[in-house]
């Protein structure tokens, strides 16, 4: 069974993987939408989004809509490339596992 060293640790967390995959399917999303889709708490979601932002996988834009603060999240090109590489690595691992069994 091969190890998992090539898997990006930033994406490997299940909630972060879910967030990045969700953002891959849209142009941009608000914090509240991501919270609704993942069923996560504010604190947990904020912490994981921060990690994705620090890795450069997610870009954040803060603005006011009708005087209310809105935080928009968008997947960066770097994030898209990382997700593609992660999926490719997973598929390679799966192939290796299937071959071994």
């Amino acid at each position: 069974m091969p190890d998992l060293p090539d898997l990006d640790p930033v994406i490997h967390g299940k909630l972060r993987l879910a967030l990045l995959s969700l953002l891959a399917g849209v142009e941009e999303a608000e914090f509240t939408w991501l919270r609704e889709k993942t069923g996560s708490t504010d604190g947990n979601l904020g912490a994981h989004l921060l990690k994705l932002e620090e890795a450069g996988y997610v870009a954040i834009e803060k603005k006011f809509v009708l005087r209310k603060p809105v935080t928009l999240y968008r997947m960066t090109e770097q994030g898209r490339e990382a997700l593609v590489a992660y999926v490719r690595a997973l598929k390679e691992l799966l192939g290796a596992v299937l071959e071994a069994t």
Partner: protein
Amino acid sequence: MTDQLERQDIEERLEQIEKMLLEGRSSVQRGGWGLVLWGAAYLIATAWGMLTREWSLAWSTTMIAAACITAVIARAKAKGVRSFASRALRAIWGSTGGALWVFCGAISASGHWELHSFIAAICVLVGGGYLATGIFLRWHAQALLGILWWAAAVASCLVAGPQQIGWIFLVMDVAMIGFGTYLMILESRATRAMRRVAHA
């Protein structure tokens, strides 16, 4: 055993990515509620018209109310996310809705009103919207609903009077409500499955 677990983990992750990607894409496309709402609106307008013979009052009142409710719900549903699909669907239904209002307004204002051709034109326009949506989203059932609307357009040209046209509309209303309810059940299941995956 370890091999089996790791294989399972990899497969679960791939499944999670696929589900979330689809969710991101499809969350703005969910239209089950719209079909139920408009199916119910047509049903109310048809029943009202058949009972009172006040077709203009019944249809104009119900359609304006349904359009207002649609605008409010669609705005609330689309809140928080923007995508290519949401813009495409707004374009399709905005154009279809606009075409319907222009057509109905022009016909009403001109007085050149003939029941069969009026109903046929409405069915063709609505059917076009459903067909375009079905093709764009690759939902065969919705595309089929569009073709059913076109079949209703042909049928409404062939039948004798308002009573028969009313029956055609009743069949379409039931089809829309049935299909919309089915879609809403699927959407609800998909949402529950996605939340499970995110926290697995």
